[in-house]
């Protein structure tokens, strides 16, 4: 899922400074699961912002609303009335959510309460780590199900590099060397021969480097 983290209250307060009525909008999907922008977080941040405003003597009205998903128009439309009544929207969704709200309600400033960070998995309650870089050309079948783009600090395709030591990365010692993990996994799968094949230079145009991406399914269009 998409993992995001709330910006500091200081940064958020600077963003909403000057607006008299702010709608805090939550999202009931990914950011609820990583405790960053679900209904509870919305209520908590709204309360905190009100307290900060009262303390600072700012007269700002904070309202709240959470929808199922912020990346589909039908759900965004549910916010219509509340958005109309506000001067600005503080979205607690991921970047996609913030922008969808902004595109739908063109006349209202939409501000990001989160820093959207990565696509990842839950390691245990309260800990998430990055797994996928959305490179658009998946080679997980060649690496035993471990992604060298997302998990290797250098994103190299034929690792390890010379800095791999005791299974750890030379750039950040807490990070596992992805190629050590790949080696161990392929060994347990009995597929070490895969390492003998050189993975060719990556065509990064399938990734963000190729520009903003779009996906169309003709058969699914109405």
């Amino acid at each position, binding site marked *: 899922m998409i993992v995001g983290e709330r910006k*500091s*209250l*200081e940064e958020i307060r600077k963003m909403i400074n000057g607006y008299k009525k702010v709608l805090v909008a939550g999202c009931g999907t990914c950011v609820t699961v990583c405790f960053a922008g679900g209904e*509870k977080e919305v*209520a*908590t941040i709204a*309360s*905190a912002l*009100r*307290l*900060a*405003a*009262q*303390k*600072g003597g700012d*007269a*700002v*009205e*904070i309202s709240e609303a959470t929808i199922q998903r912020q990346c589909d128009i039908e759900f965004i439309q549910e916010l219509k009335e509340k958005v109309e009544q506000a001067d600005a929207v503080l979205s607690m969704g991921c970047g996609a959510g913030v922008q969808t709200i902004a595109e739908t309600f063109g006349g209202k400033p939409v501000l990001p309460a989160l820093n959207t960070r990565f696509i990842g998995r839950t390691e245990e309650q309260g800990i998430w780590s990055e797994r996928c870089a959305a490179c658009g050309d998946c080679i997980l079948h060649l690496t035993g199900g471990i992604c060298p783009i997302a998990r290797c600090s250098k994103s190299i395709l034929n690792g390890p590099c010379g800095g791999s030591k005791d299974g750890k990365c030379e750039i950040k010692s807490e990070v596992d060397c992805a190629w050590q993990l790949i080696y161990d996994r392929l060994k347990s799968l009995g597929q070490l021969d895969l390492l003998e094949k050189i993975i060719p230079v990556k065509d990064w145009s399938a990734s963000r480097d190729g520009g903003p991406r779009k996906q169309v399914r003709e058969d699914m269009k109405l």
Partner: protein
Amino acid sequence: MTENKNGFSPKIAAFCCFHSAYQAADMAGATRHAYADGIYIIRVPCAGKVEGLHILQAFEKGADGVLVLACPEESCHFISGNIRAKKRVNHILQVLEEIGLEPERLKIFNLASNQALRFLQVVNGMAQRIKDLGPSPIKAGNSGR
């Protein structure tokens, strides 16, 4: 009793776990020792029921201080409620810091159901600390809600 010369009597919301602090409060009552009348006990089945949200709401509504009273460490009646409560309180303390509200206004204490004197120490101590700090810089009623 805890009024200073300006007549400030702190309003403190005390979330009390029914299996520990609430009973200790009852026992404190039986000793007939007085404590500040601005302390209002809100009963919860477990400190683990108290959310950061409730604490912030208490401050929004004009609390000068908030107490969360839980079972002793390693003896939560429901195993992990006091641990959850502590984590949430620590999280909200960070939020209070970001808002600029004094962290002394929110405290969590652990006590057993028979610790009447400790209950008195805790609430009287809190009332005194809040009295010294003064009223909460948040003015109640202007919440814009």
